[in-house]
Every structure is written in C-alpha cells, then in structure tokens.
C-alpha cells in the first residue's frame, strides 16, 4: 500500500473508535509533556545559571600577573637578575596592557588597583581593602540588587560599599544564626554620606632609583620610597552612592575589597600599591606598571584561548574556567536525570499504545480477515497498524509539546510569584528550544512505533479463515 493510503486508512480507523484512541493519544501527550517540561526546566536552569555566571564576571575574567610577582622574594629576583629572558619576566606595564587588550576575543583589559588604606566615617577610622572598578562592571550581577546607584561617572568621587563594610561603619553585626541584616536598612543611613579616604600618593621623586633589592619588605619600603619617588599623604572625600549585597570580587578570596571606586578616579590618585615598590625598581620607562590586570573575555568559552595567548606573552594567568566546566558537567547529569524521569511517563504511555492496538486487533479481527481475503498481504496489515501507532505518536507528540510548554510556563509563572513574595528577583528559568520540540515529537513517534511492533506483527499473522469465521 502507498503511504498516502496508509495514512488515510490509519486516520480513518483512529476516528472510528475516537474515545479510546483519543485517550491513548492523551496518554502519550502527557508523557511527552512531562519530558518537555522536565527538559525545558533543566535547560532553562542551565541558561539561567550560565547567564548569571557570565554576569558575575567570574567566568569571563582572566587575572594577569607578572611572573616575577609570583616569586617576588628578593632572592629569586636576584637570580633572575643574572640572566632574565625578556619573554619570561616581562613587566606588566601600559604597553603590555594595550597588547593584551588587542588580543582577539578580549573585551577589555584594565589594571587592578587595590590597596589597603584608612577610611574615616563619622570621625572613626576604618582600615579596609579598596579596589577600583571599570564602568563596564555596572552590568555585574552584584550590582543588580544594589541599593543606591552605580558611579555617576568614571571619575566621580564616589564609593560603593560592600554590605559587610556598611555593617562595620554602622557598628552593626548580624545576629548569629538569625536573619541577615537587610541591605536596604543598611543603605538608608549611609547613602549620600561622605567618607574621607586617607592614602599615600606616589609622586616622582628627585633622586635616582636605587639599584639593589632589599632583604625584607620594610627595608625595601624605606629604600625605594626614598630613592625612586616620594610619598605624599593625601585625603580624598568620597560620596557613598551604593551598598551592594553581593560580592563582585568573590573570586579573589582573601584579597577581595569592601569598598569600590571608579577606575579612572583611582588611577588619577596614584595611590601607592604594595607591589609598586618591586616593579618600579626595575621599570625602564615612565610608563605606569601594574601589579595585575583584569582581562574580560567576550565569552566564557574563549577564556582558555585568551589565557593561552597571554601566557605566551610571558605572564601568569588565573581564571575560574575549571569551575565552569564542572558546572557544565553537573547540568549534563541533571538533564540526563530529568530526561530519564520524563521518559518514564512516556514509557507508561507506550504500554497504553500496545493495549489500544491489541484491543483494536480483537475488535477488528473480522476486518483484518476481510482485507486479507480480498488481497491484503501480511505487510499491508502490519503497515496499517504501524501507521495507526505512528499517527497516535505524532499527534500525541504535538499535543504533548504544547502541553509541556504550557506546564513549564505555569511553573515558571508560579515560581516567580513565589520569588516576588520572598522579595527575590524573578527570572526566567524555563526554555523550550526548537531542537527540543523536534526531539520530543521524534521521540514520541519512535516510542509509539516500537510499541506498535508487537500488535502489528500479531495482526499480520492473523489467520484469515479463522478471522472470517469470528463473529
């Protein structure tokens, strides 16, 4: 029989016992729907997570340091001084920064300016780590739920506080085991207030640079500070514009900062940084030398490529690529589990198909006998039952995708209501990509054809003489 005739006869037969076949098809569609709903949530969560990760800046940032820095003890430096190869111990200066910034796939490369200094608030001194942020950090996840606003400009005399520092300023500590202090409550008395930052400015000094290294950090401080440049004590007024709940620098571990300044402002201050001393001592030019540079990569998947390129230039790099890879593995496993659970419902539905078709054989025994008597081959009968199973599979698959899509939407909607109630940011953690639609319908068709295998074989083998005798 031709496919066209098969389809026509199959659909006609499905219409004949409409209720039973509809119920079976609904069974399939529920199975497909559970599969689609599970996977769409899995995919959605994965997309949400990677979206968050990209925003967090954890996985698209490479931190570049000079190799020298890592082994920055005086002794090693001396050894290298005997025969340093330029590629191995390059200075991380402005020209290196520009070179990195022009690498393919690099979005920006900005110097890490971070220093510990004293901040005065309400006439009380607080010693803390300060870090500079480029204006691109505005899109960072940490500032999404921030109280107040981001820096008005890259040079504004403004500061954003991390929540823990805000607590420190207000003299509040979160109760042990209890609820955390609300950021909004912390921010209210602080926003718009002024902080006074006292810092050491590095100014070019009149004396020639010292030629030798020193044995200890304090000795070096004295020597170099006196020899290379002068240090001037300064004050800078900063307006508190924001209090952030999350930590934009969580990847930095113990060196993370609690107060943030606009990058250009921080650069203009020429604050003396702990690593300045060593670098400046061997810097050949007047160019600024950085202790480390943060490189933002266009896409987390290109981090490895960029890292390799920078390493080739003679610098040390650090990124959280490995962590993102294990996260991907986690989602693959999660998807697999969701797929298995979603498939269970489809497996139950496939038993429904077998049942329906076996019933149909019993009911249509005589009809099968007639068809064989007037010339239908075993293959024709088999194909007809196969076509019926397939038609139920495709119809159930289409209905199931629609149903699963709706279920996913409802779950997403309901969860967002819940999130809003808990005063958390609602988000979309549900996604039905086209490949999932195709996969679900294809899978449904496959399952129903496999289910039709046994009934179709049984119908084909029916003895026409007995089938015609049967009333």
């Amino acid at each position: 029989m031709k496919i066209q005739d098969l389809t026509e006869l199959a659909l006609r037969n499905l219409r004949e016992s409409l209720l039973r076949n509809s119920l079976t098809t609904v069974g399939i569609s529920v199975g497909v729907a559970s599969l689609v709903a599970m996977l769409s949530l899995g995919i959605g969560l994965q997309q949400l997570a990677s979206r968050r990760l990209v925003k967090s800046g954890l996985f698209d940032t490479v931190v570049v340091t000079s190799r020298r820095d890592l082994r920055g003890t005086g002794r090693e430096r001396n050894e290298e001084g005997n025969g340093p190869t330029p590629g191995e111990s390059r200075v991380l200066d402005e020209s290196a920064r520009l070179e990195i910034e022009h690498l393919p796939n690099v979005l920006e490369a900005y110097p890490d300016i971070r220093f510990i200094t004293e901040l005065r608030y309400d006439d009380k001194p607080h010693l803390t780590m300060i870090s500079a942020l480029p204006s691109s950090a505005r899109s960072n996840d940490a500032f999404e739920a921030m109280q107040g606003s981001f820096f008005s400009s890259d040079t504004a005399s403004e500061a954003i506080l991390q929540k823990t520092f805000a607590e420190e300023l207000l003299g509040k500590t979160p109760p042990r085991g209890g609820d955390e202090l609300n950021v909004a409550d912390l921010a209210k008395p602080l926003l718009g207030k002024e902080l006074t930052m006292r810092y050491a400015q590095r100014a070019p000094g009149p004396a020639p640079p010292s030629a030798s290294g020193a044995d200890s950090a304090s000795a070096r401080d004295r020597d170099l500070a006196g020899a290379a440049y002068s240090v001037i004590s300064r004050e800078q007024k900063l307006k508190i514009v924001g209090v952030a709940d999350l930590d934009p620098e969580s990847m930095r571990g113990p060196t993370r900062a609690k107060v943030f300044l606009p990058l250009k402002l921080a650069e203009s201050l020429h604050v003396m940084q702990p690593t300045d001393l060593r670098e400046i001592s061997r810097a050949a030019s007047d160019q600024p030398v950085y202790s480390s540079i943060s490189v933002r990569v266009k896409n987390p998947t290109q981090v490895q490529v960029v890292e390799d390129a920078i390493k080739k230039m003679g610098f040390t790099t650090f990124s959280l690529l490995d962590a993102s890879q294990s996260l991907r593995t986690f989602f693959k496993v999660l998807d697999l589990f969701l797929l298995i659970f979603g498939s269970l419902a489809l497996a139950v539905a496939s038993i429904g198909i077998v049942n329906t078709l076996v019933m149909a054989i019993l009911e249509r025994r005589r009809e099968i006998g007639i068809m064989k008597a007037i010339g239908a081959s075993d293959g024709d009968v088999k194909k007809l039952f196969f076509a019926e199973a397939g038609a139920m599979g495709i119809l159930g698959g289409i209905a199931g995708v629609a149903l699963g899509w709706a279920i996913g939407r409802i779950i997403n909607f309901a969860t967002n209501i819940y999130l809003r109630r808990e005063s958390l940011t609602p988000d979309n953690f549900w996604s039905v990509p086209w490949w999932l639609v195709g996969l679900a319908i294809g899978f449904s068709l496959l399952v129903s054809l496999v289910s039709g295998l046994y009934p179709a074989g049984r119908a084909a083998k029916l003895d026409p003489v007995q089938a015609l005798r049967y009333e």
Partner: protein
Amino acid sequence: MTTAPAASAATHTVAIHSENLCRHYRMGETVIRAVDGVSLEVRAGEFVALLGSSGSGKSSVLNLIAGLDRPTSGSVVVQERDLAKLSREELAKYRLHVVGMVFQSFNLIASMTLAENVELPLRFAEVDRSRRQTLASEALQRVGLRARMNHRPSELSGGEQQRAALARALINRPQLLLADEPTGNLDSHTGTEIMNMVREFNRELGMTVVMVTHERALAERYAQRMIFLADGKLIDNRTNTPTAVDDRVRGGQS
C-alpha cells in the same frame, strides 16, 4: 448451446485442478479431516457448485482454492499456480489479482462507504486514486448501486450489500469468482437477483465460478456442474443439462 457461450474460448483449459487434497485440523487429541483426499478439476469459464451439508468440508475446499488456507497434503493448482508452494506474500498477490470472493455475510467493512469498500482491493494493488475512483464507480454501475456509492453498508439492504460485495470481487478483474453461500442471508427474490448477476459475470466476463451452497435447487438452476461432498470426501460429480437449467431460470423469472 452445449456449453456456456463466453466460456467457449477457453473451454479446454483447466482453471482449477486438485489432487488428493487434504486439510486436517488438530483439536487436542483428535484430528478433524475437514478435507480428505479431494481430487477435482474445474475448466476455465465453468460454473461449478460445491454441495454438501454443513461440516461436509465444502467451505474448506473453497478456502483452499482461494489461497486463504494451505493444504495439509495434496495439491491445488489454480491457473497454473501450485498454491501449496507459494509464499505468504505470493498468496496475497494471488488473492488480490486472480480471485474475487463473496461471502454469506457480505463482509463489507462497516466504517467505509460502498465506494471505499469496492476500491479497497485497488489500494492493496497500489492503483492511483483517480483510476481507483473511476473503476469503483464503473463496478458499482454494473451492479446498479452507483447512486448509493457514498452510503455505508448498514444503510443498505442485504441484497444491496451483496451486490456491493460482488462489485468489490470484480474490481481487480479476476479470472476466478469464489462464492461461499452467497444467497444464504437473502430472501429468495434477492437471492435470484444475485445469482443472475453471478451467472452474468460467468457468461459475459468469462469468469470461472465456484459456488458453495447447501441448496440443491439453487445449484441445479445456475451451475453447469455439481460436486457433492460429505465428511471431507467427494461423493458425486454430475453435469447439469444446460438447456434444462436455462429453461428453469426463465420460468422462474417470468
């Protein structure tokens, strides 16, 4: 008029030949010999009646000739095909192209209209839709049911249903028409109507007809030859005088 006029062209060719044909069923311990050593021959264009009481094995012989069943032993050769040696697939082809069947209970498919029932064999033969519709319409025209082609079998009388079944049996232009008690469910008037059509096919289209019946009168009126079966064995084989048959038919109609 010694033989049927249309059959004269193929008078001497043998349409069906069976040799010691047996069909045994096993029912637990006992073996039922439904057909037990039947040897017969039907010439092309002949109209033969298989007679016998119920359980005599006449329907079983018909099923063996139709290729719906396979012999336990012996042979049945139809139009030079040894049916015992055909594969299941080849038997289906044989049923499709060589044999047309009508049954006591009409055996139309209830969910299909008359036209769809009639064209169903053409679907198995993979004939194009438009050609199918033309042929089905022609066949229904022949049995006088063209006006009812879009009705379902349940909306028709028994006689009309059997006429539709005849149209379906004709659609593939088979050489052999096998009828199993074709008038068994009909009153005598519609039964006569159907039998006249069967004879018309036999004479005008030159189809070989084998009809199973338990009504001797019917067989005497229409068949050229009567084969009597009892307990699966052939017990008598006699030729009717065609003139006498014709006279009786005319008498019955007038």
